[in-house]
């Protein structure tokens, strides 16, 4: 979905800002004692998108998200979530936001159905319990007590609870940690479905493939700072490296001088990363043919998000 509107009239700009921006922070900062957990983070989340916040442990992702959720207060800076200040904890704010926390604490002795029944009571326009169960694949487990649910099922119940109020904005803090690959794929499909229903999703994750599969926009944090933010394709353009790799048995391979400068050799594998793959590849293959060398396992690959991530953090 594309929400961009060409518009120069100031009123029109104002309206589009209000309608189309779910979250906006400006120089958001959180201090614990002397340490800066979040340091001047300015980010924008558009309505209807899946926004992934990435970063290593301790990067400040959870603190940032908890400020957006209204669970933490900021030290300084500006925050607007759905046009409101989340730290007020107003009923309207809580009614429009769904929160799935990192840790799962649910009353142990109620059934999945009863838990959802209880939480839907809190909202004016809740989702139907049967829909919640179906969306999260818990229909068959609905009469099981929470105590008896598996880890993955509890996590899905977590998400179902987050969706009880039919939120405009859903926060998911590392939702698939500990999932097996097939459970993860099912979960991803559920998030995609939510997105097509118009829900804005803010996701923190360690899994690059998760962000790659789900996110429209990714933001990368490290040491409390926002390193970069953009759509995946923007990131790819700004970190536009291509990998050329091949194997060789020759320990003293004499590559052409300009290729040698950008090549890394280890354990019989050569890896070249370049922003001009066409020229490099042409030179490399020309050289190999003239030398009569076979470039076994020759591979040309685009950087995936993980490469970009690791490259930026280096």
């Amino acid at each position: 979905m594309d929400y961009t509107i060409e518009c120069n009239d100031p009123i029109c700009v104002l309206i589009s800002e209000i309608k189309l921006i779910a979250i906006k922070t400006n120089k958001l900062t959180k201090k614990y004692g002397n340490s800066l957990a979040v340091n001047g983070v300015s980010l924008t989340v558009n309505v209807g998108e899946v926004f992934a916040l990435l970063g290593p442990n301790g990067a400040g992702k959870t603190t940032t998200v908890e400020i957006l959720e209204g669970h933490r207060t900021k030290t300084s800076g500006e925050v607007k979530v759905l046009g409101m200040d989340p730290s007020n904890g107003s009923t309207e704010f809580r009614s429009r936001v769904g929160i799935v926390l990192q840790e799962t604490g649910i009353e142990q002795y109620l059934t999945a159905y009863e838990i959802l029944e209880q939480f839907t009571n809190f909202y004016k326009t809740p989702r139907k319990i049967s829909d919640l169960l179906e969306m999260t694949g818990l229909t068959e487990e609905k009469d099981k007590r929470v105590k008896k649910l598996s880890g993955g099922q509890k996590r899905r119940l977590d998400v179902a609870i987050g969706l009880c109020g039919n939120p405009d904005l859903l926060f998911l803090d590392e939702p698939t940690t500990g999932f097996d690959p097939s459970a993860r794929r099912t979960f991803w499909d559920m998030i995609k479905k939510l997105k097509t229903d118009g829900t804005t999703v803010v996701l923190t994750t360690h899994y690059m493939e998760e962000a790659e599969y789900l996110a429209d926009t990714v933001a990368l944090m490290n040491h409390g700072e926002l390193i970069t933010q953009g759509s995946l394709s923007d990131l790819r353009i700004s970190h536009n490296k291509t990998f050329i790799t091949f194997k060789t048995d020759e320990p003293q391979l004499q590559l052409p001088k300009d290729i040698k400068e950008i090549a890394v050799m280890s354990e019989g594998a050569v890896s070249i990363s370049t922003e001009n793959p066409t020229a490099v590849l042409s030179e490399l293959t020309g050289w190999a043919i003239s030398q009569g060398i076979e470039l076994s396992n020759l591979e040309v690959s685009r950087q995936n998000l993980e490469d970009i991530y690791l490259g930026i953090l280096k």
Partner: protein
Amino acid sequence: MNFRKHLPLFLKQIIYESKSYRRNPAAAFFTLVFPLLFLFMLRIFGNDSVEIDGGIVSRATKYIPMITAFSVIGSSYTGIAMTLTVNRDIGVLKRYKGTPLPLILFLLGKIAHNTIVSFALAVIIAIIAFVVFDVGLPTNSIVAFLLTMILGAATFTSLGIAFTSVIPNSDAAAPMVNASVIPLMFISDVFIPMDSAPNWLNGIAQVFPVRPFSLSLQETYSPFSSGLTSNPENFAILFAWLVVGVIASLKFFSWEPRT
């Protein structure tokens, strides 16, 4: 705060509290074990006569209200402080915080449910006392009994909620909660009759809510008393502590682990 609008939600909260409580039979059972153990001890020591204000009664008549006070405080004050701390540590409370459920409704639901449980406990003890020890039911001052129970349970629950704000984590909950109330019970006519205790000690105990609660209950069981109470001061002290408990709960309650 619109009470009419929130009443259905309040009632539903009580229902879920109660469902959750009943599904954990061990917890429910052990709330009853201690009073039963006390009654058993009473049986062993024999049920001779003791003197109370106004005349001579059986030892059981003297001790049953004290046992009731002990159980009610255990299930309201101690019980709520411990469950809340555990629920706070494992993130149950933080989840509620993220929803539109108002804090006051969440707390009132807990207080109401605990009052009901305490009341049920008191009734069970009264029935056992009646059947096994021939202790008269507190029928000649039933209104006083109801009032004492409701006021007592609500006061101790609200104080239990307020006390969680100084408990750092669930490991510390049991020792801290017990340390805060058991010494008080020793000087407050709960374990030992304090008729012959020095005045200054009773004076100290009277500042806190345990003694007024135990004395009020004893009065309701006494065959020589009638009407609401001859010591309205006891109700006043309990009520003052209820106000303290509610205000402190609303002000200092934390939905999240403290460390």
